[in-house]
Every structure is written in structure tokens, then in C-alpha cells.
């Protein structure tokens, strides 16, 4: 009868509800087969066959899984490697995934050497031409043939080219593992010119900031030297693909907005002509609603993005000064624009041109809308690419350019510091630690009705924390595991306080159960707020390890104090207090 009552108590029901949410979010599937696609190299045979890279934010269990190649089942990475190594070039390959069947053709790998002779070759070029159509003069693009003299080349076939897929064993849950547990990409960067120790430290700081703003939180950056004293920067990143790394790290990221030949503002918050605020929220950044996405070609979509920024006073003054002498022209619709456009340069390449409204002439303006575009084969891909470009531009505007250009010396995939064995060992230890807690508690109170609910409460806390982790997509690394241990450890402490306050010898002084629970939670809340207050500064400290630890601890103890521990109090009330 009493057990039925358990499922009528709202505190217990809330705990159960959260547990269900957690399990749905973790999405465990212990016998997952196949290999999951991590990335697709552009222009590779895989990408031409239509296989797309997963978005970095997508959840592990929702990514595309290769289950068979040419009807042969692929269960793991070894099957995949074994089969791929047998392929020859110009072969047709059927790749079956959990979504659809792709047919791709392997490409030969060429070695092109330039010879010392030259030859004439005909190239197609697109040029704008003025033509009279239906009585009006319009500018249209026309393709013409141009003959150029180029060096002669020799092409040899070396073998089969990589099909362009990077894959990994399919995950069994939605929990993302961090650099410590899963490994990642190891990139060695070399500054293009000689830098001093101070410059190097600043460079590393700047890179770290850029990667953080970009949202690649799980990174380790350090300085390295070789024997002859050359300086390098060594970076390890989890979960980023090589293209992203190249775009973010090897490019200097020099942003300049120019009118005519005058620079009006630059990227970075430290420069006087810099930016004071960059909008990242949805209400002032995203796909431009006035332009949206459109098909520009048979096989090409383009989207425009825009976001607003504020520039520093010095930069607004500069803009007013530059624009005051520029004449206003009026287009057919009667709107006035300045003759010169605002031109946005990224690493000295023009990325966008914006018209400046006539009324802004000679005025100090601090709020500016920045725009740009992205393309893709499908509309979805175009949206994704333009948002990706936007994020990169925002990052550069936020952090400014690197003082030195960096060259990527090499990139490798590196195994985790703590591998598969570590996880198995950690889980084993976790189980035995919980059991030993239960035994100690049993020795103290001599009641299974206390030990068993305690274990259940602890396990549910762990599950809910992991469920939350996979829901928000945060990486489980060493810092996070430490946070979980703290949450569970202080959880045991709190459960003992609840038990002692309600069932201990001193209970005769307070007869009412509700009062006893209230007194227990007075202590629990005091400890909770104190730990919480201690974690907040660590969270804002900026460094990865501190931040990860503080975040997990705060989430963990909050879940414990507000969801799991009240439910425990309710359970022992129902089971023990007749």
C-alpha cells in the first residue's frame, strides 16, 4: 500500500519526470553499429555524391551513420578502413547510410608537375557587357573565350584519391566526450615572422579568445619550440573539422571597412577605430529578412546575412569626416546614396560592398549593419554556410586581427589523454563507490529502506546531470567529471543530514515531520548557497578547466538540491514514518 503512495507524491513524480527527460536526452543505444560521419572534404567524391558534413552543433545520435558499402555491412571503423583500402579509382561505390543510399565514383590521384615549356590554352571567362534589350540598356554577364599562354604541365596518376570522408565508430549515447576522453585534432602553427616572447604570449591569448568566441570551448593552446629554437603554437581541439581550424587559425583576420581609400573602422575592441559592441543575438543578427535566400544558378543557392555593430566614437567621427565631401546620387526609386560605397575587407580581400544612405552624409553614426553572404548546393547548405561566415566575421570583429600571420605546419588526429580504459575504470569505480556508501549507511542506520532510496537518489542525480549535459551539448571532460563527483559527494552528505534530522535520536525534541524536514533543508540550503557562491567566480575566471568545473558543479548541486534530495525526503517519509 505504502509503495503505491510513493507514486502519488509530487516530489517523487517530479524526479521521475526528470529521469525520463534525461534518458530521452541521453538516448542510449548500447549496440549501435556502423560508422558516423564526422566530416566531408569539399570537392571530394563523397561531397560530389551529395554527402553533407554534420553541423558541429548537431547531437551525436542524430548524425548520419554509414551502415554498408557495396552491400557489405560496416559495423565499425576497422570494417570501414579495411573496405576503403581495397578501392581503386574510377570505381562506382554504393554507400548506404541510415538516411539514404549514395553512389559515388572514386577519383584518381594526380601528380601535376609544371614543365619548362609553355603552351596556348583557351579559358572561359565571364565578363559584364552592356546590351540593349527591349529598348533599355542592361548590364548582363556573358561568357567569352580567352586564349592565354601558360606553362605546360605533365599529369601522372599516382593511385586512388581519398573519398573525402572522416568517420568514427558510432556513438552509443548523446553525451559528447571532450578532448581528454575522445581526442581531437592537433595543429602545429608557426608564425610567419620572428616574434618576441611577449608577442607570442599575446598571440596565444588572442587565438584563445577567438576560439572561445567562436564557441570551440574545448581547446588546449600552448607554446612549443623545436631544438633549433623556432617558436610554434600547439593547439589541440576536440570536435572541430580541419577546414574550420584552417579558417580560424591560419588567417590573420584583419577586418577593415573602407570608404574610398580611407579606413573608417577596424575589427577588434582594443583599437581606437575599433568596434565597441557586436550583436550575437537573434533579434539583430541572422539571415537578412529583406534578401533571404535565392537560387543564383542551376546548382547554387545564396543567402545574405546581416548583424548590427556599434563602432567607437573615434571611428564615427572618422566616418563623418570622410563622408562629408562625397556627392549624393539618386537612383530610379528616388532614394539617395553616397557615390562611394562602404567596402568591407577581410584579410585584404573585398567581402562585401554596402550602399550608404544619403542622409548619413557627414553625420556621426555609431550603429552600423554589417552584411555578407554564403553559398551552397542546397538552400539549407547556403543558410548554414552564410551563418558560419557570419559567425567568423563576428568573431573577428570581436577579437581583432592577429598581430602575425600563422602558417599551419601540420595537423594530426590525436588520441585522448584518458582513453577508453579510463572510462571503463571510472565507471567501475563509480559503481563500487556508490555500493560502499550504501554499506556504510546500512551499518549506521541498519535499514535497507534508507540505503536503497539513497542509492536510487544518487543514481538519478548522475543521470539527470548527464541528461542535461547531452541536452545542452556540453563536452564531458575531466573538469566535468570532477564537478559530477562533487555534486554526488555533497549529495550523500545532504542525504545523511536529511536522515539524521528526521530519524536521529534528537527527533524527540521536534515532533512534527514537516519541521524536521525544514530544519534539514536549512542546513542543506546554507551549504548549497555557500558552494554556489564559491563556484560563481570560478565560472567567470575564463580559463577552460575552472569554467567547466564550476558549471558542472553548479548544475549538479542545483539538480540535487531542488529535484533529487526533496524526493528522497518524501520517499523516506512515506516508507518509514508510519
Amino acid at each position, binding site marked *: 500500500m505504502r509503495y503505491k503512495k510513493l507514486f502519488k507524491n509530487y516530489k517523487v513524480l517530479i524526479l521521475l519526470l526528470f529521469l525520463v527527460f534525461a534518458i530521452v536526452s541521453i538516448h542510449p543505444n548500447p549496440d549501435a553499429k556502423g560508422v558516423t560521419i564526422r566530416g566531408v572534404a569539399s570537392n571530394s567524391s563523397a561531397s560530389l555524391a551529395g554527402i553533407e558534413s554534420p553541423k558541429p552543433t548537431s547531437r551525436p545520435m542524430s548524425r548520419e551513420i554509414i551502415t554498408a558499402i557495396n552491400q557489405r555491412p560496416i559495423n565499425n*571503423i576497422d570494417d570501414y*578502413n579495411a573496405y576503403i583500402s581495397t578501392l581503386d579509382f574510377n570505381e562506382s561505390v554504393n554507400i548506404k547510410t541510415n538516411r539514404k543510399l549514395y553512389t559515388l565514383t572514386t577519383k584518381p590521384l594526380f601528380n601535376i608537375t609544371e614543365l619548362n615549356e609553355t603552351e596556348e590554352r583557351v579559358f572561359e571567362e565571364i565578363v559584364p557587357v552592356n546590351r540593349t534589350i527591349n529598348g533599355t540598356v542592361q548590364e548582363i554577364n556573358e561568357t567569352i573565350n580567352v586564349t592565354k599562354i601558360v606553362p605546360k604541365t605533365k599529369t601522372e596518376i599516382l593511385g586512388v584519391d*581519398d573519398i573525402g570522408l*572522416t568517420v568514427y565508430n558510432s556513438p552509443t549515447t548523446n553525451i559528447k566526450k571532450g578532448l581528454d576522453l575522445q581526442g581531437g585534432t592537433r595543429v*602545429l602553427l608557426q608564425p610567419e615572422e620572428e616574434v618576441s616572447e611577449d608577442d607570442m*604570449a599575446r598571440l596565444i*591569448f588572442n587565438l584563445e579568445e577567438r576560439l572561445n568566441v567562436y564557441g570551440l570551448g574545448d581547446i588546449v*593552446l*600552448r*607554446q*612549443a*619550440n*623545436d631544438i633549433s629554437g623556432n617558436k610554434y603554437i*600547439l593547439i589541440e581541439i576536440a570536435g572541430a573539422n580541419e577546414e574550420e581550424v584552417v579558417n580560424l587559425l591560419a588567417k590573420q583576420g584583419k577586418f577593415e571597412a573602407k570608404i574610398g581609400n580611407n579606413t573608417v573602422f577596424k575589427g577588434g575592441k582594443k583599437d581606437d577605430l575599433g568596434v565597441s559592441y557586436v550583436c550575437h543575438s537573434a533579434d539583430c543578427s541572422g539571415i537578412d529578412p529583406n534578401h533571404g535566400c535565392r537560387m543564383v544558378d542551376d546548382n547554387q543557392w545564396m543567402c545574405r546575412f546581416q548583424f548590427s555593430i556599434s563602432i567607437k566614437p573615434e571611428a564615427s567621427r572618422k566616418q563623418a569626416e570622410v563622408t562629408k565631401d562625397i556627392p549624393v546620387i539618386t537612383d530610379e526609386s528616388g532614394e539617395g546614396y553616397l557615390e562611394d560605397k562602404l567596402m568591407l575587407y577581410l584579410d585584404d580581400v573585398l567581402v562585401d560592398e554596402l550602399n550608404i544612405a544619403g542622409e548619413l552624409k557627414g553625420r556621426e553614426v555609431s550603429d552600423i549593419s554589417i552584411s555578407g553572404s554564403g553559398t551552397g548546393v542546397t538552400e539549407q547548405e547556403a543558410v548554414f554556410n552564410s551563418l558560419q561566415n557570419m559567425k567568423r566575421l563576428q568573431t573577428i570583429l570581436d577579437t581583432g586581427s592577429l598581430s602575425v600571420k600563422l602558417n599551419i605546419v601540420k595537423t594530426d*588526429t*590525436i588520441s*585522448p*589523454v*584518458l582513453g577508453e580504459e*579510463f572510462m571503463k*575504470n571510472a565507471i*567501475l*569505480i563509480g559503481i*563500487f*563507490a556508490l555500493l*560502499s*556508501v550504501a554499506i*556504510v*549507511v546500512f551499518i549506521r542506520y541498519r535499514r535497507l529502506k534508507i540505503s536503497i532510496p539513497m542509492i536510487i537518489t544518487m543514481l538519478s542525480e548522475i543521470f539527470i546531470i548527464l541528461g542535461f549535459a547531452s541536452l545542452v551539448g556540453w563536452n564531458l571532460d*575531466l573538469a566535468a567529471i*570532477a564537478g559530477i*563527483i*562533487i555534486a554526488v559527494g*555533497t549529495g*550523500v*552528505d545532504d542525504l*545523511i*543530514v536529511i536522515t539524521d534530522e528526521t530519524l536521529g*535520536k*534528537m527527533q524527540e*525534541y*521536534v515532533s512534527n515531520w514537516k519541521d524536521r524536514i525544514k530544519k534539514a533543508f*536549512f*542546513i542543506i540550503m*546554507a*551549504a548549497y*548557497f*555557500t*558552494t554556489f*557562491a*564559491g563556484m560563481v*567566480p*570560478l565560472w*567567470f575566471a575564463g*580559463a577552460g*578547466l*575552472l569554467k567547466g*568545473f*564550476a558549471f558542472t*558543479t553548479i548544475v549538479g548541486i542545483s539538480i540535487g538540491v531542488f529535484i533529487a534530495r526533496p524526493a528522497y525526503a518524501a520517499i523516506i517519509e512515506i516508507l518509514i514514518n508510519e
Partner: protein
Amino acid sequence: MSKLIKALKTIYEDKYKILLIIPILLLVGAIAQIGYQTITKGDFINRDVSLKGGMTIIIPLQGEIDDQKLEDFLKDKYPENDISIRYLSSGTKVKGIIVAADIFVEDTDKSESLIKDLTTLTKADRKDISIEFMGSSLGQSFFKETFTAIIIAFLFMGSIVFLYFGDTWQHKTIMILLTLFSVILVYTSSNIFVSILTGISIAVLIIMYIRFSIPSFAVIVAALSDMIITLAIINIMGIKLSTAGIAAFLMLLGYSVDTDILLSTRVLKRKEGSLMDRIYWAMKTGLTMNITTIVALIVGLSLSQSEVISQIMTILLIGLFVDIINTWIQNVGILRLYLEKKR
């Protein structure tokens, strides 16, 4: 047996002022150790390769290799160094191993000998091996940031405890404002003037704690000395701290306040029984808390096959034993002195 317990009980109940010497000596000794270590070794902790940096040797592999055997061999041959092995792969094929050791450019004999050993063991060609010397994985500013964060953490924790156990709301308001002021100063500390001002405002805060809320002061001192004493013991044991070890110290911050708050609440906010009754009552609950954790940690340590787990558990275990002394001797002693004075 019961005679011994009775004797201990008498000492614990009557000689609490003398007992207070134990935690004070521990704290003073710990500060001395850390100071001595900083002067003689130039660093307040022993860092492992992940915190100190060192040499990485990248060796391309042709065939398979028994990494466990390699690791054991290296650990035997270079017992005083910290050596770790990881894999490099290109796409999905294992391409090589990467060995990290806390050996620096200056130490040519050792680095040469390690490279020689590795070439013979892996049968790799000397010219294919690439060598880098790298810095710490936590960055130069990490420890400075951590110190700032921990100081602010203690200021915040102190103010929460003051809100719980402090006396009048006027004092609480002044204390909160002063804490926020100090926090802002600590964050912006840019020149000597601000640093001096920070020092003054924290000093005023400490005086306020001692003057108006000894129990809050006791909780914070207990948590702080937990960390300091544990650090000194780890140093004496010669354990080389990794990033995991740093995480363990942060964990102590969360663990140590639990028992102290339990004790203060039971002693100050409850009216049941005598003072000693309430202390024993708190101790019964508190020691159950400590013992469950200690047993879990010992079980974990005995099952651990990973150095990272062992290091975290060792630090927590030491921290908990230190916490037992700091809670049940130091904090109890301060509380009893305070209540005696109040009467």
C-alpha cells in the same frame, strides 16, 4: 576500551583550548612548507608534464607496438620523470606515437638518452623523429586567474555564511557592500595603489568577521586551511600535480564547507540539549558524512588503474582527513571560545 574513550572524551571536552594548538601548528607548518618550497624550488607546487611542459617526441610507426610495455620500460628507466604516451593518426590509421616527458632543452644528456631508447624500442629511424619543447597546457595566466578566482570565491562564500550566522541586518548590509567593493577591486587590480586599497578593504572585512560574526569567520578559516594544509602534505609526499590535481583542489572547496555549516547550524541555531550534546549530535552526522566519503575514496583508490583518478582521490582523501581535524577540533574550539566569551 571504554576507559580510553572516556579519557579522550574528557580531553576533548575540557582541554579544547589546548587542542586548538594542533590545527594552528598544522596551518603554520603548511604555510612554512609552501614558503620553503617556493624559495628552494622556485614553485609552490610540484608540476607534472601537463602543467610544466617539456619535451614531446613524435615517432612515426610502421607496424604495431606494445605501448604498455614501452610505458612500463620508460617508467622504470626514468623514475623521477613524468612520461606519457599518446597516439597520432591520420584519418583513421595509427600513424605514430607521441611521447611527452618533463625534460627540457638544457638537459641534453637525458633527452638524448630518451630519444636513443625510443628509437631502439620502436625501431624507428632517427631522422624521422621530430622533437618539440612545449609549454604548460594551462597557459601562463592560469594560476594567476585561479588565485584571483579563489580569493573572490572565499569572499563570496564568507558573505553567504555571514548572512546565515551574522547578527544584525545593518552589519549584513555593510558586509555585503564591502564584499562587493573588494571583489571589484580584486578584479580590476591593475596598479600598486589599487592593490593596497584591495588589501585594506579585505583587512576591514576580516576585522568585521572577527568582530561581528566569529562563526562565519571559523567556517571560512576551516575551508581555507583545508586547502593550504592539503597542498603542503601533497608537496611533502612529492606528488607531481597534473591538471586533474588542480581540479581536485577545487573540489575540496566544495567539500569542506558541508560539515562546518552543519556544525554551526546545530550549535548556534538549535536549542535542543546542552552545547556538548549538540556538538556530539553534529559530530555523529558529520562523521557519517566523512566516513562514507572516505570509504568510497579508499574503495576507488584500490580499484583505480588510472593515475589521473588516483591523484584526484589521493588529494580528496588527504583533504577529508584534514577537514576532520579542522572541523571537529578547530571549528568546534573557535565556536566554544566564542560562546564562552559571549556568556
